[in-house]
């Protein structure tokens, strides 16, 4: 139920509108876009593939945001400790996650 892998849309089928060719590290498969009718992907987009269907578009922005948050771990703590020393309130609220 859970194995889903990111793949890049290489080309959208011209004859079968709900089908696309997706690439995962050089492995290619036709994937059904029927679940993404309300938010159609285009070539170059990344989608999450499960049992031959695209389940969701992958947001590069959210991914970068998450990486940034993780990289700030520990560092944000250091900042908070320092700021706490200044006697400011509700520092916890300003945490990134």
């Amino acid at each position, binding site marked *: *139920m*859970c*194995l889903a*892998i990111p793949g890049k849309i290489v080309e959208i089928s011209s004859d079968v509108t709900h089908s696309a060719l997706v690439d*995962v*590290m*050089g*492995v*290619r*498969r*036709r994937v059904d876009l029927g679940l993404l009718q309300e938010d159609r992907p285009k070539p170059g987009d990344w989608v999450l*593939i*499960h*049992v*031959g269907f695209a389940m969701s578009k992958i947001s590069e922005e959210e991914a970068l945001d998450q990486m940034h948050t993780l990289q700030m771990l520990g560092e944000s703590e250091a900042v908070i400790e320092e700021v706490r020393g200044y006697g400011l309130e509700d520092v916890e609220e300003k945490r990134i996650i």
Partner: protein
Amino acid sequence: MSVTKTMENFAAKIRFREPQIEMAHGAGGKASRRLVEGLFAPLLFGSNSGPLGDAAHIQINDTRIAMTTDSFVVKPLSFPGGSIGELAINGTVNDLAVSGARAEAIVVTFVLEAGLPTDILEAEVRAMGKAAQQADVVIAGGDTKVVEHGKADHMYVTTTGIGRLIPGVDIAASSVRPGDRVLLSGPIGDHGITILLARGELDLEAELRSDTRSVFPLVQAVVSAAGAGVRWMRDPTRGGVATSLNELARDCGYGIVLFEEKIPLRDTVRGACELLGLDPLHIANEGQFLAIVSAELADVALRAVREAPGGSEAEIIGEVREQPAGAVLVTTLYGGMRLVDMLVGDPLPRIC
């Protein structure tokens, strides 16, 4: 494995309890081992025979030769990078190579299905001839049987090979020591994934070929460089690297620790494995070998393999340690670990 007199064994009791033979018994993993150790070994091999290796070493007067046999059943017969013909030759050459022997001669048995088009047979026989030439081995003879349509998947091929032991090589699981290094000749999973894709059931395409080839030149490079430092070798075919190393761990009683980031893997094989939920360590290889080399000589051995044609992607992928005794552990750079066991049956894609 040394062969002793077998006369007295045919009356021995067998330890194999299963009522009938199942597909798993031919898959090369735990079930196969149960069959061989529980039924064949007690009845056919001497009661003192040690761990079973890829080839038997036989003493005939002053000469020691190696001998091995293998059957090839593959669907589809032909795939990117090779066909049953190449597998049949290279497989036997490689079994001899990893037991420390240069293949000298092979005999071939065909079991052919009635109705098999001649041009398919011809293509396979040509492939075998070519592979034998490339591996520098003589095809000395053979036998053919034809069975009714439906009783064989087009054709089954068996090859039996004999070879001469390379002087100075004495490999056995019992020679393996903690601290020894695990050397792998190149990227894993190419063959098994190629076959899986070639069957067409999963509708996946990739630029991937079987890695079928003779590994003898690379084995020779390792042996020339490291001599007595080479403790053990195996070609990780069905069941993959995981199965071969688990067999070693069981036979030598030590643990094998692998470094995940060191294991060579092509992107396409990785992509296919991620997509299908497979572990590359369980996938069959037909052109690679594993060697356990003493720590002092491991770097020299690695350099030698890398300088030999086709060996540039070789890596030291792990070490022998006291723990986990009898098992294989994969470790990551961040300290996470997992045990990896022998394969049971064929690797199956999963969706969960």
